[in-house]
């Protein structure tokens, strides 16, 4: 009588553990970092999810966002796009130097911020964590350098100590068209790799 009971107990525990682990993995909470935290929309590598912050978000999205973007606002107030690769689809790496370029966004305010693989601001004191609409000003087109050391001129996002990193584009109070049809209306910034393994 004991053997069947032991078998059932082992089956139950194994099932619960594996089930729990699979939920964490599919939500991107364990395992390789999943930029698919933002997977409903893809605009030239910038990914987002329409249900971020909303109670209508599916359980996987809610779990991923709670881990990688806690306290994110619903889309009516802000939308967030994240990108972890350059224009050649290679992972963004602090060993490389990139040119980030774009235009004005149709929103009250926007910013682009660099985060490390743990979704944290990289541990440096360069005070070059982001660029935003107030930094860029009225320029219709702008460029910035992403590098571990400051370039001689121009806007700069410091990737020092970021290792593999990603960028989050925030649009606060976006225009209705951007909320409804981001694939058609978002002005997706470009990320072009300039070099690797060299200091600027």
């Amino acid at each position, binding site marked *: 009588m004991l053997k069947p009971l032991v078998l059932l107990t082992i089956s139950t525990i194994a*099932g619960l553990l594996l089930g729990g682990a699979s939920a964490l993995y599919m939500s991107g909470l364990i395992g390789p970092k999943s930029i698919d935290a933002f997977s409903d929309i893809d605009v030239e590598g910038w990914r987002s999810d329409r249900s971020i912050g909303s109670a209508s978000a599916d359980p996987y999205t*809610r779990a991923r966002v709670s881990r990688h973007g806690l306290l994110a606002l619903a889309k009516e107030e802000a939308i967030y796009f994240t990108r972890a690769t350059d224009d050649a689809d290679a992972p963004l790496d602090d060993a490389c130097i990139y040119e980030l370029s774009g235009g004005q966004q149709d929103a009250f305010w926007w910013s682009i911020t660099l985060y490390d693989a743990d979704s*944290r601001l990289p541990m440096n004191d360069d005070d070059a964590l982001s660029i935003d609409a107030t930094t860029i000003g009225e320029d219709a087109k702008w460029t910035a350098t992403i590098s571990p050391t400051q370039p001689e001129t121009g806007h700069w996002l410091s990737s020092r100590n970021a290792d593999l990193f990603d960028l989050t584009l925030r649009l606060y109070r976006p225009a209705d068209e951007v909320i409804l049809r981001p694939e058609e209306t978002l002005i997706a910034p470009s990320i072009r790799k300039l070099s690797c393994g060299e200091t600027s």
Partner: protein
Amino acid sequence: MIRWLASFIVFVAALFVGHQLVLDKTPGFIMKKAMTVMKENGAQLHSFTLSARTTPQSQTVVRPSPDLAYSICPFDLSGGQSLLVQAGAYSNYGSVSFFDARTNNFATVRIGPEQTPGARFGVKLHPPGKRAADDNFAGPQIEAPSAKGLILIRRLAPSQAAYDEVAKIAVGDSCGPISG
């Protein structure tokens, strides 16, 4: 044979239960942990605390924006009281957002340039199941979907000077219980 089949069925059932349980509990677990960290960093129940300017050294949550100044008010309405949430007007982007115990952003109210300079924004927050009071209160009245949660004020502050301006305004932020 039957024994193994039964074990397999139990395994699959447990797999499903384990999966759903973790998925369901994760947001609440993370929110609870985040609120604990915030309290350890000075956040107090039913009181706004302006966080230090966001830097790599001061960050307490994932993906904070270094361009925003955050004021946090944890709330617990399990005693049945309602809160009056007030925030000082700001000359640039600002918002007051409400999050429940499962991280859902259940309401956001804008503050900022559209407000009369010097005026205070006000919202009443009611516990789950409590209807808005039939009074002459001019601002929004919101029912929280959970007794516990967080109120977060965001104000645009991409520089130290802007943050210092926010710090002066944030002194007037409040989220205390409504008496009576």
